[in-house]
């Protein structure tokens, strides 16, 4: 029996963060015309922005002394340092090195956020989910 749950259950902690950023969807591998066709309004040369929601799920044993999988203050500080500081109020194409040659779609944002949060030592990262708007969300579990 695990301290987390026993009886074959898994306990997951989910935390949502908010950041606002601008981007432009444009691929150097496509012609100007193809870029306009594929990305539509998102190819606007001046870029545009979103209020993103980043949801992080971690799992692990619940510490009997604290009742926690991971101290929220530690998770918040880690995600703040590793992700939010470099994404929030930034132009993703221009200011995040990972998106110099990679189109900053939300699919790719998920992969980048996952890679950055994976190193959180206090619990196992299960997945990240990013809402680009209230109507679009994307998930990545590292597989």
């Amino acid at each position, binding site marked *: 029996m695990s301290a987390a749950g026993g009886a074959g*259950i898994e*306990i997951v*902690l*989910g935390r949502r963060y908010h950041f606002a950023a601008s981007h432009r969807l444009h691929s150097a591998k496509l012609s100007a015309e193809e870029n306009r066709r594929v990305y539509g309004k998102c190819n606007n040369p001046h870029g545009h922005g979103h209020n993103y929601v980043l949801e992080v799920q971690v799992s692990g044993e*619940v510490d009997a002394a*604290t009742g*926690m999988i991971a101290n929220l*203050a530690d998770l918040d500080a880690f995600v703040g340092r590793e992700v939010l500081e470099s994404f929030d109020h930034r132009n993703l194409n221009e200011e995040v090195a990972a998106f110099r040659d990679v189109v900053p779609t939300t699919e790719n944002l998920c992969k980048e956020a996952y890679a950055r949060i994976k190193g959180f030592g206090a619990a196992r990262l299960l997945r990240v*989910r990013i809402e680009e708007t209230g109507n679009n969300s994307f998930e990545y579990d590292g597989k």
Partner: protein
Amino acid sequence: MITITRKIEFSASHRYDNPAFSPEENRRVFGKCNNPHGHGHNYTLEVTVAGEPDPQTGMVLDLKELKELLEREVMRRMDHRHLNFEVPELAGKIPTCENIAQVLWELLEPKITQGRLHKIRLYESPDLYAECRRNGTGGA
């Protein structure tokens, strides 16, 4: 397999404090949640049951029965209560989202007889939740 999710909301107060820690340690580990006077949240609980629809009724379970079960087991036990002092199942535990979710799973799981409890997700605020689910279900 079909999953069906019912949502309820309750309000409760709590405080994080481990008597084995010194006051300084409690403040360091639990921060604002260690305020001696406690604080409260509007919790949202989502209960997901999985199963096959009954060929006679077309339902995995009778939602009215689930609603009554949640009223009996969750609302009466936790709504407008102080979780440290008034919920015996949480005695001796820090009433974190993780621990409350686990207690709720243990209360509800044996009582769901139509279908099978698949997952519960307990939101302490819109930006924080704990989820209990069966190992191996990998649910998103």
